[in-house]
């Protein structure tokens, strides 16, 4: 299947948006997953619920809330614009924010699940060898919860590629800026008789995420090689 120049642009934009979304969300997702797995603090349940919001509310509502917060008239957007001269409205950065927010709950849950499965006795052993909590985190907890990080990555990436409702509501459908694959598919769906275009774009989406899946599976297979299971 040969892609047209327009289609290439859309693919490139989607990749940029999705990768930016997932990569910037990952550290927050890890921190939240860790807090929810290990932390004990008042309001933990509220935090847990807040993390799930993007999943529970219809995406268009999330898009609208983002609009209210990040729009030039909103609290966050206003500050960003006044202090940094930076606006996300109608920009690919806004699309990445929308995708990242929508992916967040999936990523947090996957990471949390992996952290909960880490045997804390292994960490205890590291502590007795002189590892500070921070060092222990980087050298033991993080590597041992990589399966969850990998899952978070692939779920987040797939979700970002498929994200549409929050994005179009927040940053519209602007060619070259916010018209990602999913939005292009939506647009094509609006045109009677454009089924062929829909199929093409859908196949491209599938191809992209198949690629991401292949890479992530190959990586996690390498990761697991020779060291599955716990040790006596």
């Amino acid at each position: 299947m040969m892609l047209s120049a327009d289609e290439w642009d859309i693919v490139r934009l989607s990749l940029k948006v999705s990768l930016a979304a997932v990569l910037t969300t990952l550290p927050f997702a890890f921190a939240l997953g860790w807090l929810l797995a290990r932390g004990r603090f008042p309001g933990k349940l509220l935090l847990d619920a807040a993390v799930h919001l993007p999943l529970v509310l219809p995406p268009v509502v999330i898009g609208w809330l983002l609009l209210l917060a990040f729009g030039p008239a909103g609290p966050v957007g206003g500050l960003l614009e006044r202090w940094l001269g930076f606006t996300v409205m109608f920009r690919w950065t806004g699309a990445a924010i929308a995708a990242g927010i929508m992916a967040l709950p999936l990523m947090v849950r996957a990471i949390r699940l992996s952290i909960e499965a880490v045997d804390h006795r292994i960490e205890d052993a590291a502590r007795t060898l002189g590892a500070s909590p921070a060092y222990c985190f980087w050298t033991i907890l993080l590597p041992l919860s990589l399966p969850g990080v990998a899952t978070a990555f692939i779920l987040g990436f797939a979700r970002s590629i498929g994200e549409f409702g929050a994005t179009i509501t927040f940053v519209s459908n602007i060619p070259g800026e916010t018209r990602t694959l999913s939005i292009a598919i939506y647009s094509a769906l609006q045109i009677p008789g454009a089924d062929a275009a829909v199929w093409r774009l859908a196949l491209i989406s599938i191809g992209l995420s198949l690629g991401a899946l292949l890479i992530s599976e190959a990586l996690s297979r390498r990761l697991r090689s020779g060291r599955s299971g716990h040790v006596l």
Partner: protein
Amino acid sequence: RERGPLVLAAASLQEALTAAADAWAAEGHAPPLLSFAASSALARQIEAGGPADLFLSADEPWMDAITAKGLVRRGTRASFLTNRLVLVAPASSKGMLTIRRGFPLARALGAGRLAMADPASVPAGRYGKAALAAMGVWPTLSNRIAAAENVRAALAMVERRQAPYGIVYETDARATRAVRIVGVFPDSSHPPIAYPLALLTRSTHAEAEGFRRFLLSPKAKAIFHRYGFGAR
């Protein structure tokens, strides 16, 4: 490549407005950026302070809403396109119906449903409901509706024979060969179907007003006409 004005336009204008913009660009202007989405989403983006130049709404209330907030440049609002409401059936179907007071649409539906845009919220749905009420058949149909997210989705239901009849705009019905027009609702049976356009207060693009004038010009009207729109 220079960037033209940013135009937020109702999704149902997609093909016609794209053609008009191409014609404008062919005259040597920078091609406008066209963002198609639901009128409601676009209006909310404008409310949030989105820096766009032109707004083309699918109906008047959303334009009223942003006008009331002072987001529309005074004297630039115009209702520039009209449309008609039609009853459609799958191209392969045989049934004959004449639209008049008390016509037996409910019986013609059999066990099926009448596809239309959501009569509670989407403009095309509201027009449809008004028209059916004017024909005195709404009470027999109100619980037989398959309410779609937008007109094009309602059209798709008829195209794929999920619904034996549907109510859509004439422009939509003309865009596909999978449906046939059973009848046209009289203009008097519903509020006038008008697409208003306006220049936005936040517009900064030098060519925004030029493009607006172009859309109102006879040349553009001819293009819209080709896609089935009436022009005032």
